[in-house]
């Protein structure tokens, strides 16, 4: 059953590929396929970029292979293709947390062979792409979790978590704002990124520098307790937030119902649009505040570019990646899609300010606090375990300590089963 299961979609996809490429000669060694987001504005951007790349390199043709936008579905598809050793797609847009998994599986190429120029990337964005000391992918754009705050309710962003709690409490009690603080509390990956930021704020981590599980440390318990108490005790976070993802959170803030919001950069442009937003021009962004025991932390998201290990033409594939990572190309994407470039020097330019319509220094200050999620091939499974534990504690099915202890034990046995507990990435 398992094998059939794997083959049927692959066969179906192969026929799709054949169909898509109908008319283009698949024997030509210089036909590349690019797989990634190809709908909406991202689709518009990538098609424009590929056209200009082909104009520069007439010998290379690039086809776009559309993939689902939902991260889980795209991941599933990639696994099926790569596990079947398909030669297409050549260049893959990966979510930043997948790179170690695909690298450990031998599905993507070690990029060190191309001697990539890596001095102008934010260091955290590279760390996330290393496995066993080698670099397997290059960052394309960065997403960071950040604090949106209301300029009309306070003079400056809170400098620590206590101040945030006070301002949020004041907002709900005295300024008649329904919610003090909103974040993504549904049981999904977003919850882990929120937790990661508060964990950093309390000085904790999910894995330590040696790859050992430390998610059940006292600091982690404090962080999770803070999250739970902000719902039940301080009552600054609505209990409904435990079913919310990015969009519900954004809508609450956009309608002026929240003092603070934790969200990704994409919300910025939407919130600035006065035709739909009640807080246009009345909010600012800042790094998530911390406690004295930790430091401001921004969960690192975003996409990276990698090359299929079975690609028929990895040199051309690398040429395409290099092209897409040129500052001018990153600027195009910043302008069309609003994505933040991974190159720090670009944040000193006026062009980026115009493209993103945001003060680049603000964005840069947040990105410098970026912390990648654990760079381990089994991240998805670790995350799923953690999501369940966090959600159990937040919905009061378990005490934070018990939930994290259980998650820690499960994560250790997962690493042991994967035989990763001995290795030091």
């Amino acid at each position: 059953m398992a094998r059939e299961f794997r083959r049927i979609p692959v066969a179906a996809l192969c026929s799709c590929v054949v169909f898509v490429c109908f008319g283009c000669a698949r024997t030509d060694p210089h036909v590349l396929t690019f797989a990634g987001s190809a709908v909406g504005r991202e689709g518009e951007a990538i098609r424009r970029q590929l056209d200009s790349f082909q104009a520069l390199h007439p010998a290379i043709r690039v086809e776009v292979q559309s993939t689902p936008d939902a991260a889980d579905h795209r991941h599933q598809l990639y696994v099926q293709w790569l596990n079947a050793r398909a030669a297409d797609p050549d260049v893959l847009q990966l979510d930043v947390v997948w790179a170690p998994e695909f690298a450990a599986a031998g599905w993507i190429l070690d990029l060190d062979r191309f001697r990539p120029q890596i001095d102008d990337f934010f260091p955290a964005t590279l760390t996330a792409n290393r496995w066993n000391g080698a670099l397997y992918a290059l960052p394309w754009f960065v997403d960071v979790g950040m604090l949106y705050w209301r300029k009309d309710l306070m003079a400056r962003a809170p400098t620590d978590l206590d101040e945030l709690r006070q301002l949020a409490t004041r907002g709900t009690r005295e300024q008649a704002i329904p919610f003090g603080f909103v974040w993504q509390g549904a049981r999904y990956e977003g919850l882990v990124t929120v937790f990661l930021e508060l964990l950093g704020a309390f000085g904790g981590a999910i894995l330590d520098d040696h790859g050992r599980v430390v998610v059940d440390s006292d600091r982690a318990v404090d962080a999770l307790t803070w999250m739970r108490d902000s719902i039940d005790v301080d009552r600054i976070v609505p209990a409904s937030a435990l079913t919310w993802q990015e969009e519900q959170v954004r809508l609450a803030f956009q309608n002026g119902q929240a003092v603070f919001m934790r969200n990704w950069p994409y919300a910025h442009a939407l919130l600035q649009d006065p035709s739909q937003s009640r807080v246009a021009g009345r909010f600012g962004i800042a790094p998530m505040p911390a406690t004295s025991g930790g430091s401001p932390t921004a969960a690192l998201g975003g996409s990276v570019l990698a090359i299929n290990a079975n690609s028929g033409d990895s040199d051309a594939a690398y040429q395409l990646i290099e092209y897409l990572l040129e500052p001018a190309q990153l600027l195009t994407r910043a302008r069309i899609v609003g994505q933040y470039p991974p190159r720090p020097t670009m944040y000193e330019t006026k062009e980026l300010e115009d493209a993103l319509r945001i003060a680049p220094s603000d964005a840069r200050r947040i990105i410098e606090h970026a912390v990648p999620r654990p760079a381990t091939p089994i991240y998805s499974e670790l995350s799923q375990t953690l999501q369940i534990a966090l959600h159990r504690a937040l919905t009061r099915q378990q005490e934070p300590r018990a939930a994290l202890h259980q998650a820690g034990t499960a994560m250790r046995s997962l690493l042991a089963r994967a035989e990763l507990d001995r290795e030091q990435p």
Partner: protein
Amino acid sequence: MMRDETRLGWTMALPALSVIALIALGPILWAAWESLFLHDLRMPWLGRRFIGAQNYIEALSDPRFWGAIGHTLAFAAVSVSLELVLGLALAVAVDSMTRGRGLVRTAMLLPWAVPTVVVGLVWRFIFETPAGLMNAVLVGSGVMADPPIWFADPEAAWVPIILADVWKTTPFVALLLLAGLQNIERSLYEAAQIDGASVWRQFTAITLPLLKPALLVALVFRTVDAFRVFDVIYVMTGGGPGTATEPIAMYTFSALLENLRFGYGSALSVVIFVATFLLALIAIRLMGRRTLIEPAS
């Protein structure tokens, strides 16, 4: 002569049997074989190792597995009981109608015709907080001042799930029972009336016993279906909060398709298969010859 006929019989049945073998038996045996391996697409460096019953041992010692079994059984028990009671009431009501029965019967089937995923989404929308219809009604009518955050509460989350399932499948049960009711000889009721039996007495002494075969069929179909519940919960709660509403089919889905653990996921599939198979066997035993071969009266 007889042997020839037997051989001919087998030959004629062969195409059908081989199709069954190909699409049913083959995959089941394959899954059973696969369940003996450590085969994890997320950990390809481990290869595909034969580990015997290890996957089954892991499942049986996993609290999440037992939680999922518990949720499935509880869901099946509650939703099927409600569906049978409501379906019976509906069937009796429609059966006693003298006019417009065809129209009502068609209208009744509408919820059944709506795809389950759509049903789930609609009910989720109704119970969404804070802007859902249900909470507005509950607060507005004064029934509850502070209604729960349905999908963030491990107990309350079951309410919309069960409501959605009952809403969707009661018509199916009702229709099965209606067919059973219409098979009951009218003269029995006339005789009972002459003997002075009350309506309730007629119901318990005539309707229920004679309806038993139809009730059993409905019970079995619904129980087997409820045991495999997936879609309605997937769209409504995704198994949450935590894993408080996760049924066994969703746990298997998570192991097999999200974590790509083919060996372990196959072991879970085999467990579901065996459980459903046993249910079906018991059912066939219960209904057996008596129901299926002999007519109801």
